[in-house]
Each structure stands twice: as C-alpha cells, then as structure tokens.
C-alpha cells in the first residue's frame, strides 16, 4: 500500500493545534511559578461555551470571544485560589477542573437535554484545495502567530522578564519592585484564555458539536508537553507536533485493513504512552522554575 504522507502531515497539524494553545497557556502560568491543573476543565469550558454561543447566535466571532472570556475567568479562579489565598496548587487545579466539568455538564443537560446532537456552524478550512495547507484558521494562528508571539514576549520583553523573574525568584523580583501577585494573576488569566481557545477549536473547528468526552485528557497531555519542552516555546510546539504525528498515525492505522483486528481503543491510547515514554527520556533531571508550586508570602 502507499502511505498517505500528505494526509498524515495535515492531520498532525490539526491534532496539534489545540495542544499548542493549551500547552502555551500552561507555560505562561508555570513560567510564573504556578501549575494550573485547571487546564483540563478550562479546555472543556472553552469547548462548551464556544459551542453554546455558536449554536445559539450563529456567530463564530462571538463564540470565540465568549470562550476566551470563560477561559480568562477560569484562570482568574485559579489565580484567586493559588496566588491570593495560597491554596495548594494541585488541589486548587483539580478542584477547578472538577467544578468546570460539572458545571458544563449541568448546563449542557439543562440546555440541550444531555443528548447534545445539536450541531453548529464551524470555521472553514483555508486553502481547501492544497492538502497539507488545508487547515483551519486557528491552526495558522496557533503556529504562525501565537507561538512566535509567546516566544518573543518571554524572550525579549519586559513582561517576559518579569514573568520569569517571578517564577524563578519571587523574593528578588519583589525587592526589585515587580508585583509578584499581579504578574502571576496576569499569566494565569491570559493562560486560561489561551487554553479555552484551544478547547473551542475542538467544537468550533473540528467537530461542530459538543460531547462529554471531547477533551479526554488533552489537558494532561499539555501539562506533560510543558515539562517535555522544558518550559521553552519551540520544544513545546515540537512536542505537540510529535503527539499529533502519533495520533495521526494511529488514526491511519485504524483504517488500515492489516490492523483491523487491533482494538481501536488501544491505538487511541498509543500517543499517551508515547508522551509518557518521551517524559521518561526527556524528563530526567529537568530543572523546574525556581518557585514552582510555592506560594509567595512576604516575610
């Protein structure tokens, strides 16, 4: 058989898109010293709010806008808990994820009677005639706009310097007049907005509908990608592409007759193992941001 290289490349880029948004959102928080385990719920809320608004108003612009706002609010909740109140970050994050998933399921049940076969308008692919370039607008935004922008902000701007300073040594940053709380709040709110954008890609570009298992661990993948990429933008994007590639390959295998007897679910699980394996290799002896997981209190 001839291997559909172009189709796999195209699928890789599409699959990696929400991961790029989610992982870069997580990166902002972690560079500032806060692990946001609310990411799984924030992706979910972005997917749901985007779907809800698009289904009700028919406006994709409004849908994306509302998804961004919902994500920013989710980030603000995590910031309130972890930065202002100093709650354990694992507990605050998991709690936020549980809350957002339950709240979306509740609203979904109320508004769509749980069945959720409602569909909505979706973004059209650009360059529909040119296979590998036939991608959704969000894919172009993610790879060509967002990733370079985050890279540039972290590397070359005052805001990026403050971000890293606060994440590495908050005492020193505070002494130098940088507000630790304001920096961390900003990072988490912007990061949450990016995560929700990634979530909205699932409903507004890929599926056109909302299902209860729509995120299925992509948030945890993003957290793994940040460690895999050692808190640097381009290695994280590369990691997202790697996951996308394996996911695209398993999708291809699933429709290959020779693999017809392999249960579909085991193929779907393959990329998760790839991520764990990649962590096992690349995750050794990584240096976490200096103030990772540590709430800051003035002495």
């Amino acid at each position, binding site marked *: 058989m001839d291997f559909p290289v172009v189709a796999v490349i195209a699928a890789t880029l599409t699959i990696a898109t929400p991961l790029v948004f989610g992982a870069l959102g997580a990166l902002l928080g972690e560079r500032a010293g806060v692990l946001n385990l609310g990411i799984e719920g924030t992706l979910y809320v972005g997917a749901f709010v985007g779907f809800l608004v698009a289904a009700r108003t028919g406006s994709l612009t409004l849908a994306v806008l509302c998804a961004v706002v919902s994500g920013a609010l989710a980030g603000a909740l995590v910031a309130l808990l972890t930065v202002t109140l100093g709650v354990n970050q*694992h*507990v605050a994050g*998991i*709690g936020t994820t*549980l809350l957002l998933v*339950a709240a979306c399921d509740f609203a979904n049940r109320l508004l769509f009677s749980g069945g959720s076969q409602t569909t909505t308008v979706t973004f059209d692919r650009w360059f529909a005639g040119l296979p590998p370039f036939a991608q959704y607008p969000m894919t172009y935004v993610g790879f060509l706009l967002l990733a370079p922008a985050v890279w540039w902000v972290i590397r070359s701007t005052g805001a990026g310097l403050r971000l890293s300073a606060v994440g590495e040594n908050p005492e020193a940053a505070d002494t130098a007049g940088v507000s630790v709380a304001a920096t961390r709040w900003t990072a988490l709110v912007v990061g949450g907005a990016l995560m929700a954008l990634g979530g909205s890609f699932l409903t507004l570009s890929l599926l056109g509908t909302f299902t209860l298992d729509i995120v299925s661990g992509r948030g*945890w993948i993003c957290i793994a990608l940040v460690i895999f990429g050692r808190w640097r933008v381009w290695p994280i994007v590369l990691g997202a592409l790697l996951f996308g590639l394996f996911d695209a390959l398993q999708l291809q295998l699933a429709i290959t007759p020779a693999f017809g007897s392999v249960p579909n679910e085991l193929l*779907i699980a393959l990329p998760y193992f790839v991520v764990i394996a990649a962590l096992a290799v690349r995750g050794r002896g990584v240096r976490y941001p200096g103030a990772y997981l540590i709430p*800051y209190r003035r002495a």
Partner: protein
Amino acid sequence: MRFVLRSREPRWLGPAAVGVAVLLTLALTAGPIRLAGAAPVAAFERYLVTPLSTPNGVAEVLLSATPLLFTGLAVAIAFRVGYYNIGAEGQFLAGAMATTLVALSLPDLPAPVALPLGLLGGAVGGLLWAFLPALLRRRAGIDEVVTTLLLNPVAVLLLQGLLNGPWRNPETGFPDSASFGEGYEMPVLFGSRVHAGLLLGLLLVAVATVVMAATPLGVRLRAAGQSPTAAGFSGIRVGALQWRSALVSGAVAGLGGSSQVLGVQHQLTGSLAVGYGYTGVVVATLGGLSALGVLAVALLLGDVQVGAQSASIALQLPSQMGGVLTSVLLLTVVAALSVRRYRLTRLTRLRPAAPEPVPRTPVAARPGGD
C-alpha cells in the same frame, strides 16, 4: 487595613472557617439551582436530609460512600507523604479490570476462594497501574502528577477496548462483560444493597488510623509529609517512604474498583468510569488527609450523590448539580482554611519616628502580600 499572618490561632477558628465555607457553598449554588427552575432550599433538603430520612436511603448513602472511601483513602495515603498521586481514577479502574480478569478466567470458584482472590487481583491491578509513575519518580525524578494523570484516560480507553473487544457480552452483544460466577458475589449487609466492601473499607480506615497514630512507621510518615527536608536530616528515607506509599495507594484504589464490581455490578461495565478517583482527591483533601476524615467526607459525599439522584427525579434538577456542589464545597473549604491563617489589623506605623503614617501603597494593602 491589612492581612497579617496569625501567630496563634484560636481553637474555634478552623471549624468556623469550614462553617463559613459551607454557607458560601450554599449561597453560590443557589443561583444555578434557581436557574434550573428548582427552589434552592428544597434542593438542599433533598441533597442532605432526604437520603438520611429512610432506612433504605441510609443504605444507599452507605453504598455510594463505599467506593469513595477507598479512593479517598488511597489519595490521602499518597498525599500524606508528599506523593501527589492523582491517578486513583486509573488505579480504581485497573483494579476492577484485574478482578474481572480473575472472575472471567476462573468462573466456578466457590466464594471463600473466589472473593479473596478477586480482591487480591484488584489490589495487584491497582498497584501495577501505580507502579510506572512511582518507578519514574523514584528512578528518574519524573513528576508523578503528570504521569498519574496521563494514565487515567489510558485506563478508560483500556476499559472500553476490553468491553468492545474480548470481553463483550457474548449473550447480549452489549459492551459489558459477562456476569461473574456466583462465588464472586460479595455478601450483602442488612438485607440491602450495601455489601461487604464497606466493611473492608472500614477495616482499612481502622488500620490506617492505628498505623498513623501508634506506630513508628506512622511517626516517620507524618514527619516525611510535614517536612521532607527535616525528615531527611533525621535519617528518614523519604524517597523510599513515598515509593511504598505510592504502591499502597494504588493497591487501595484498586481494591475499591474490585469491591465495586464484586459488590454492586457483578460484571464490568463502562459506567464504572464516572470519576470515583477524581472525587477521591476531594474526599482526601476535605478529610484533612486523615483516615477518619476520609470516612466522614465519604459519607457526606455519598449523601449528596444519593440526594442528587433523588433531586433529579423529584425536582427535575439535573443530577450533575451534585458534582457542582461537591467541587464548590472543596474550593470554598480550602480557600476558607487558607484565609483563616490571617488576621485583619489596622495598618500600624512601621516607623514610629515618621511624621506621618506610612502611606498605604497598593502592595502593602494587598492581602497576604504579593
């Protein structure tokens, strides 16, 4: 005005903070309940009081609390020594799958052999699911949070794969396993649906309480959890303790999955993956990472779960509200317990000689510093 850390904390403050958090939870959830067209007071009565008003209701609460007892205890065991096992969900499912493997391979065993074997299988399954993250943490220093989390969706996929493939029900063709043999039915208690898994859970709570309170191991575990560095200096091998706690934690979660399939379902179904493991994080945290606390909170959340079902029938309030209530309670309690460490004081003069009070800079006024 500004917040400063309390040097001493009055006894009543902790319970008072929890009380405030409960009131806050009721206030925050009243809005969505009203939006759904139900009266908040009637809903809260359904959630908290109605299940406990009949013997049958109490039995259902105990039944709902049973899996949470295991997952809550599993999470508490790991968190207590600073190992953040958030994979109880996957370990719970792995335990259920391992028990199913035993039950389907040896269907005709009599109960005295079948039940211990099934439970042992569950414990081993949960332990194995916890093994890889624990090993990666111990040998390569890889963050267990990510790896335990990642294995949760994998366990769900494995469950679905087995149910759609080799274990698909041969009679009905549905994605459920065949029913287990008679020997694999956990004895029920008080003629209700409550099963012996509850007793096993209570036994584990008792063992954990005694170990933590009255053994040298308990002293080392508490020391390692409170201050790993100090514990390390005093000769406690924190890494080894975490490693063993991680495996025990997985085994306990696996026992929970095992008890659920042996006691309630008597077969493996996809409905097992409804977040018992994630709720275990809530149970452990609200229970203050102590075994008795886990018991109390598991009962409370069991109450809310049964109430959520009853409210969805009686008040047409979607049962997902139970999950919302639980997670809001978690967040308000941890927030209130954190706030309690501070007291509000008038801004004092930092420099007595200064001619005018220290200006209220935004930084100084921020609660808890920034």
